[in-house]
């Protein structure tokens, strides 16, 4: 009988061990590193240098805000593009549902790098898109898109779109259609039936999709580098963290910045889930 009490803990074991080894210990190590001083060659000594936190926030506050803004825009745009797509697939896809879902994910079977490099070709000043528009006289010949903040948001949106569509699809797919019919029977207009039944029931998907998009987007650095071409007005906080780690060898500042980002993201997520209702995530 005594053994049975331990079974749940044993079953939790692998997950707990995983979190401990790959999350808790590295985070603890990083926390200690952020409070240390020194150099890579001499080593870092723990001096409880809490002053690093206000320092990095003061110095890079603007970049934190910019990254949050980029990630919010990305989340919003992926939602605006992804919701109609997921809705159409779930409600009108019929027997093509699986094929349509495959088409959504298909580009992501190709390496991220190749896709992004190709975007750079397609979106170059005189490339397929803008070259054509310039030839047609729609755009000013001096117009350029790459290496602008908008291009970074574009890259983020493109790369994270499936993370929005898939949870939305799952949420929409399992909605009981009879509820929408019932709303109609009860004289709800189609718009109001959509808003008060379909959309509300799909909220878990909206929440999950937003989190899966926002959280990785806010810390991204690749899009600012490749599509943003390292434009000084377009870089994100992730670029600074990377530079601090690899170029400045300033591990404490890099670790502190990473922590601020993690905690800031957690706060924003907490506010968001509180506002929408956290229970929707697990509904």
């Amino acid at each position, binding site marked *: 009988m005594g053994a049975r009490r331990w079974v749940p803990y044993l079953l939790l074991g692998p997950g707990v061990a995983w979190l401990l080894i790959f999350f808790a210990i590295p985070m603890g190590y990083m926390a200690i590193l952020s409070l240390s001083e020194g*150099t*890579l*060659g*001499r080593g870092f000594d723990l001096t409880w240098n809490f002053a690093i936190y206000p320092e990095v926030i003061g110095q*890079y506050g603007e*970049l934190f805000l910019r990254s949050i803004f980029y990630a919010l825009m990305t989340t919003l745009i992926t939602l605006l593009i992804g919701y109609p797509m997921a809705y159409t697939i779930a409600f009108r896809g019929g027997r093509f549902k699986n094929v349509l879902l495959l088409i959504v994910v298909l580009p992501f079977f190709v*390496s991220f*790098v*190749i896709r*992004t*490099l*190709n975007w*750079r*070709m397609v979106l*170059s*000043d*005189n*490339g397929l898109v803008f070259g054509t528009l310039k030839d047609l006289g729609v755009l000013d010949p*001096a117009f*350029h898109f*790459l*290496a602008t903040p908008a291009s970074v948001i574009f890259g983020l949106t493109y790369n994270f779109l499936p993370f929005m569509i898939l949870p939305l699809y799952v949420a929409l797919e399992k909605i009981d259609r009879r509820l929408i019919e019932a709303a109609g029977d009860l004289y709800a207009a189609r718009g109001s039936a959509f808003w008060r039944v379909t959309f509300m029931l799909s909220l878990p998907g909206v929440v999950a999709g937003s989190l899966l998009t926002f959280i990785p987007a806010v810390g991204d*650095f*690749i899009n600012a*580098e*490749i599509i*943003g*071409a*390292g*434009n*000084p*007005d*377009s*870089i994100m906080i992730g*670029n*600074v963290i*990377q*530079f*601090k*780690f*690899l*170029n*400045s*060898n*300033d591990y404490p500042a890099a670790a502190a910045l990473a922590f601020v980002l993690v905690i800031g993201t957690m706060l924003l997520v907490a506010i968001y889930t509180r506002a929408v209702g956290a229970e929707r995530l697990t509904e």
Partner: protein
Amino acid sequence: MSDQRSRIEIAIERALRQDRISRRNFLGQTAKGGVALGALMTLPGLIAACSPSGSGSVTLEWLNWPAYIDIDEESAPNPTNYPSINAFIAQTGIGVNYNEGLLDNADFYHQVQPDLSNGNKTGWDLVTPGGWVVQRMADLDYLEPLDHSKLPNWTANAADWAKGNWYDPENTHSAWWQGGTTGIAYDPALTERELTKFDDLLDPAFAGRVGAFSDMRDMFGLTLLSLGVEPANATIDDVTAAQQKLVTANDAGQFRGYYDNSYYDALAAGDLVASVAWSGDITQMRLADNPNVQFIIPEDGGMRWSDNMAIAKGSTEHIDETHQLIDYWYSLDAAVLLSEYIGYFSGVAGVKDRILEDASAARDAGDNETADYLEAIAPVVEPSEDQLANTYPDKQMSEDEDQQWSDLFLEVLGG
């Protein structure tokens, strides 16, 4: 920020470059589609790039940069067949496992530093990092000394420019692999004027269409030279002045971005009218992608760099064999074979003359295409007197100074 980019991406870009180097496939081909196709064709090569070659009882693990070796093009799209390395294997019976995994100096240093500081092996018999990494590693006693008595070819054939450089004045720890210069490239058709100095990049007429580099040493180096300061003597005040100059240019929207290798495509496509550039790239750009683009060393000075063969401490039981491999590259035959393919500054005296001889031999044999190509590449395999006189090395920096410079540069990058 090349220094921190995803490795795969850099590898792919280098592979693109590699295809440009396989110029015989590329001559006369300027369409961008050709470049993209080239990238895809090289991918299996990237994946297969770690396959071993050589059957000797000793196999050396060599870590080098991509696109830095001659490739038997017949073996494409799986280019793991390196004629010059194969010749070494045939001569010595020593195997070589050639790895193209060195993608960035800072990355490399971060990769091996933890092992070396704890006295562990790195897994590499031979590594090929840039000058400042050699200096940093030698300072920290991370490198095996080279035994010059085991390097007869080096002693006999090493060129003046390849010896006694600032990062290793007595060549105690390193031997030059290949080198090049950093200057300015521009398309005269787009700039509608000649560019001669760094400040020409700051012409308001080019605002938003100029490329800068994300490499701190190159970018600060050129800016310091434009302020009349030799990078090697620069004080922190000088660097702060250079930083202010670049920040002012940023505020005016002068630079479209701080590029890594990707400046190549932007410049070849005409998105940029001018950019900071590496000499070797522009040789290839003119041959393969855009014949209009010109490379100049700014009259106020350009930068000079090199990558160097070195042995990480305690990492190899094959010190003798590794010396043999280092020395092999200082035989004229091996150096010519390599240089005809990759076109950087060789460390071996006489390579240029030999390539010109090969060119006239090809012309006599009626192979004008090869002759034209060899004549184009001969001038870039060794630095001219002018280039040597007007290019400058990096500053030898302590860790602390490096961090100070880096923090200043981060502000230039927008941080």
